[in-house]
């Protein structure tokens, strides 16, 4: 079960023509797919499009009614390869993933897909993970569009436009026999808005139709000589067809100065996704209204690849200068503009990254400053106000300096959740490094990535999802101290089994490989993977990691419970020092606590309500004996293990404190024992609905204990200060 359930929201997908859809961007896109008559959908989860996968998974019923197939693809490469069904059949298809990382993984299949071309509308919804909130290296998907000749849609971010553009994207794909990227930024995915729905459409041509009448076209195979033919088709047929479609259907928009002032001889060219921030910037400068009327003419590129030369030339022909607002680097579009204008012998000047930042997100502030700089350079008469600057300037008189504030505010990096099963594993590794010495550790993508952050800081490199095992290959034949690779179960099935483990067997690697099996693709929201089990019952698992690694020839495989910290430490040490030559695999098991709590909490609550005996555990720290050294926190980082001011006026250091969110996972206790910490930790076992025997034992014990305590209380009360 995914972290967020859309079971209720997906009902909105049934809305018919004329009804108003209220909801999140990701759900609106799903509705758009159904309105477009899509035949099959799939993808791989990852922010910001994890929820799109969750929505699809939760809409099985509606999808099957419409005859739409949903595939939870094993990786982005799988998803891209699945699109091959649209090469020879008029099947509309959509897949989704996080970009650019997912696009990197998919790019082999994408190249071949783009080379062969499609006849069914093929849309790849990419969640462009760029700017604030991004979790990956900052690159542009634009490069992939250019190199493979896949069109790139970057729609104005409002729901009606996004849904409308999605429908047109299918048409563009079919008109030009080319797959199309549909790019959505983080905020657009989470945008709440509304649009007027249309009826859902069943695909005209079905997957069944395809299998009943297979269509084999030799020239769609990507082998020479056809590949040369494909390249020719791309340039001579598909590109012009796309440009024609874009022009005829006005996919790009020109927003002219309503007053048509001849003095107004400058313009702004922008990516569709930046439309709202550009309008807001102009508004702050008094040059646009809330409704989007702009004094400066705008050319809004809802299609950022290919460029439509004729439209650009027409827009810039009589202008003194244009500003290209293009986010990220390199500035591909700005470079192209120079070529296009030069060929057309235009005198129009082009500004872009000279006035706007060369890299990074185009927030309101930097966009406004860039636009202001452009106007100041080419038409300063238009500038008469800057509301935003005035507002920020009113701050400058403050008595507390920015640097004082920076020092006072601590950073809040991401971390593992309360009770996370990966925490004890990282604690064990940290303790091992203390005894054994530091180790080269290749980390991976997933929740386990957070092990590289404080308080553990375990891991030297992260090379990609499922590539943790492969990342230590350079060290695979070095004798003596071994390297460790860490990989999550999600990464393992994504590609780690083959890229890492099978390859390690083949190369006689002597390294240690640790696979953290929490039962889900947890970091992206708890989606199922092949080794997941709905109730974690062994017989319901589709595949086991241990079987898989043995299947590729691993001889040394151990499985261990992640919460058994001392045992984990001993086992890893054994793997590091054993005489066994060859890859050593340790599967560290512990179910994702978020998922486990989601499953168990309601059951326990029901049991308690029904009067059944239940024990709830949680931890407690004795303030009086806590030393204020926080060694326990340096081995944990659990959100529920926190600090509070020292209640003793003589002592200055804050004391550890367990807050109410503690789920009683036991890590604190294990750490106390394994690392010989202070005697401040205690586990409270709260008994609900005790049996008569429980109550009898308890009252008997309490009688004795209380009597002894009273006795000592009396002694103590004899002398007071």
């Amino acid at each position, binding site marked *: 079960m995914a972290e967020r359930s859309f079971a209720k929201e997906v009902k909105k997908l049934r809305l018919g023509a004329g009804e108003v859809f209220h909801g999140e961007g990701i759900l609106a896109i799903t509705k758009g797919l159904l309105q477009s008559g899509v035949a099959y959908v799939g993808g791989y989860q990852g922010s910001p499009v994890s929820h799109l996968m969750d929505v699809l998974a939760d809409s099985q019923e509606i999808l099957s009614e419409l005859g739409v197939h949903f595939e939870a693809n094993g990786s982005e490469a799988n998803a891209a390869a699945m699109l091959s069904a649209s090469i020879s059949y008029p099947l509309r298809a959509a897949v989704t993933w996080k970009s650019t990382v997912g696009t990197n993984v998919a790019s082999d299949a994408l190249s071949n897909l783009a080379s062969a071309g499609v006849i069914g509308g093929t849309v790849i919804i990419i969640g462009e993970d760029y700017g604030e909130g991004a979790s990956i290296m900052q690159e542009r998907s634009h490069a992939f569009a250019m190199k493979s000749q896949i069109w790139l849609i970057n729609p104005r971010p*409002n729901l009606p436009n996004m849904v409308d553009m999605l429908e047109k994207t299918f048409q563009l794909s079919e008109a030009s026999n080319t797959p199309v990227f549909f790019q959505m930024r983080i905020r*657009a995915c*989470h945008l709440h808005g509304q649009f007027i729905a249309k009826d859902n459409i069943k695909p005209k041509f079905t997957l069944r139709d395809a299998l009943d009448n297979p269509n084999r076209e030799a020239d769609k195979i990507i082998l020479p000589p056809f590949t040369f033919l494909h390249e020719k088709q791309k340039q001579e047929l598909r590109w012009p067809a796309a440009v024609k479609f874009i022009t005829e259907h006005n996919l790009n928009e020109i927003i002219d100065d309503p007053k048509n002032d001849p003095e107004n001889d400058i313009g702004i060219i922008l990516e569709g996704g930046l*439309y709202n*921030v550009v309008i*807001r910037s102009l*508004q702050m400068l008094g040059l646009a209204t809330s*409704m989007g009327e702009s004094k400066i003419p705008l050319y809004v590129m809802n299609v950022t690849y290919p460029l439509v030369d004729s439209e650009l030339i027409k827009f810039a022909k009589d202008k003194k200068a244009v500003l290209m607002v293009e986010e990220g680097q390199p500035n591909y579009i700005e470079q192209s503009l120079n070529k296009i204008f030069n060929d057309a012998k235009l005198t129009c000047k082009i500004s872009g990254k000279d006035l706007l930042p060369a890299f990074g997100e185009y*927030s*309101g*502030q930097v966009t406004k400053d860039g636009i202001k700089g452009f106007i100041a350079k080419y038409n300063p008469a238009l500038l008469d106000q800057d509301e*935003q600057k005035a*507002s*920020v300037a009113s*701050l400058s008189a403050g008595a507390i300096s*920015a640097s*004082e*504030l920076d*020092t006072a*505010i601590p950073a*809040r990096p*991401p971390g593992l*959740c309360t009770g996370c099963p990966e925490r004890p594993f990282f604690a064990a590794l940290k303790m091992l490094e203390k005894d054994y010495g530091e180790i080269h550790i290749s980390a991976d993508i997933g929740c386990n990535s957070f092990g590289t*952050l*404080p308080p553990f800081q375990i891991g030297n490199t992260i090379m990609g999802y499922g590539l943790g095992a492969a990342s230590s290959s350079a060290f695979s034949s070095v004798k003596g101290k071994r390297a460790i690779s860490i990989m999550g179960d999600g990464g393992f099935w994504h590609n780690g089994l083959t890229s890492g483990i099978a390859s390690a067997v083949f190369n006689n690697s002597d390294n240690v490989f640790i696979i953290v099996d929490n039962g889900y693709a947890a*970091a992206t929201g708890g989606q199922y993977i092949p080794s997941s089990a709905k109730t974690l019952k062994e017989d319901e698992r589709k595949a086991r990691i241990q079987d898989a690694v043995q299947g590729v020839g691993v001889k040394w495989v151990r499985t261990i419970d992640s919460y058994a910290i001392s045992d984990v430490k001993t086992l890893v040490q054994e793997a590091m020092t054993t005489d066994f030559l060859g890859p050593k695999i340790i599967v560290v098991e512990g179910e994702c606590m*978020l998922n486990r709590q989601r499953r168990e909490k309601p059951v326990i609550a029901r049991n308690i309500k029904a009067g059944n005996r239940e024990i709830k555990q949680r931890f*407690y720290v004795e303030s009086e*004996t806590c030393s*204020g*050294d*926080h*060694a326990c926190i*340096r081995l944990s980082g659990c959100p529920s*293990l*926190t600090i509070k001011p020292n209640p003793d*006026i*003589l*002592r*200055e*250091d804050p004391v550890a404190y367990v807050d109410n969110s503690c789920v009683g996972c036991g890590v*604190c206790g294990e750490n106390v024992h*394994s690392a*010989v*910490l*202070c*005697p401040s930790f*205690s*586990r*409270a*076992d709260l*008994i609900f609905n*005790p049996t008569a025997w429980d109550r009898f034992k*308890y009252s008997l*014990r309490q009688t004795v*204990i209380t009597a*002894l*305590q*009273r006795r000592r209380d009396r002694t103590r009360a004899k002398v007071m*200060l």
Partner: protein
Amino acid sequence: MSSHQMERPITIVISALGGQGGGVLTNWLVTLAEQCDYFAQSTSVPGVAQRTGATIYYLEIFPKSSVVDKTIPPVMALMPTAGDVDLVVAAELMEAGRAVQRQFVTPDKTTLITSSHRVYAISEKMAMGDGIGDSETVMRAAHEAAKNFIAFDMEKLAGEMSCVISSILFGAIAASGTLPFSRENFKDAIRAEGKMVEVNLRGFDAGFRAAENATDKIPLNEVSNITATLITGQANSPEAEALIKRINALPGTAREFSYAGAQKLLDYQDLDYADEYLGLLEGFAAEDKAPFDITRELARYLALWMAFDDTIKVADIKTRTERVEKYRAEVKAAEGQIVHMVEFMHPRIEEITGTMPRIMANMVKKSSLLTWFFKKFTGPRLLDTTKISSFLMLYFIASLKPIRRKTERFHQEFIHITKWLDHVSGVMTQDYDLAVEIIRCQRLIKGYGETHERGLSNFTRIMSVIDPGNVKAHRVAEFRVAALADEAGKTLENELNKSRS
């Protein structure tokens, strides 16, 4: 509505941590706006649950009465811009600080509503001493930057009302009058969302009332200013009375600490021990001069050192009546509920021999047979103090108090204490400030086992380089910071080397 507001939407930033209900609050605001005939757009950059810290939600609302065609919404931004935010709502103080840092809060337009409570970041929690961020600076900066400022402890209020913090925030937003909607409109939004309506309305009302009283005030924790007032105490014997008198004879600024110290030592051992402490203190006070920093600091650190953490102290604390009460309240046990209290202990041979009289401890240390025997009692163990056997074991150890002064541990600690006090008296006439810093270095010695050994070793290393005339007081303060920078002691080593060279 002024023409200015018509041109521009009302912009709202919400910053909340995982589990604080920022998403729910955003939904309420959207519903509220839409029910009042406004366009509303919200978006977020979410951390998934707790995993990425704070989530920033951004909303814009715009009156439908200001547009010609009510089916066409205005262009609304997807992210806040510095200097362009009307309302900033933060569910935690440092997140409010971050909004100020990013200049979302400006004196000409922004209402800032924040909870004053803290959710500590990992860097604050994992520090080897006190790593807590500076709330006061953040609070003052926030107050200064905002047009309207509302801050109070919403976490506490939410606890009292058994509701979530988001409903308190929603009430505070209503009370601030920043949005052009009535109190009833707000409540209708909660009703329309339909989830836990009663609880949320209760939280809303509590938040509304609290915000009315909190406007434009900085809620600061009461700073315990050291006062020179006389100690009254609650002495119940002539001997105790005498101690109170002696405390009051000490320099004024040292009284509060010395009273707390004497109380601590009475509780730790007996009245004689408190008497001994005061005797030592009086010795230093006689040589001290205004502003009597040495006496004050010594009152604090000597008490802490004399009440060192031994097994007797731990056992005593864990078997007390008031401990059980505190424990049950903190783990939220219901009246009469059975709660087992399972202690995690890991005694080492040092703890066992430390609790023995010196002669016996030496015998054990010398005899491999005895060491082997007593090692059987070491290692990790779980003691349920609600069970008679475990309780009796700890109760017995606590009852060893009368022989504490004869134990090996006591002997060892007093060797160090005496040396330290000698050091202070040796230095105080030559370099007063240096002597104060030497006293403060006691802070490094704390805890048990490895933590205690590390602290004592850092302390000893710092003491070894102290040389009046060559090492200035501020350097010793720097050494102390360095000693708390990393567990391996590398930072301290670097600092000490600088002084040696």
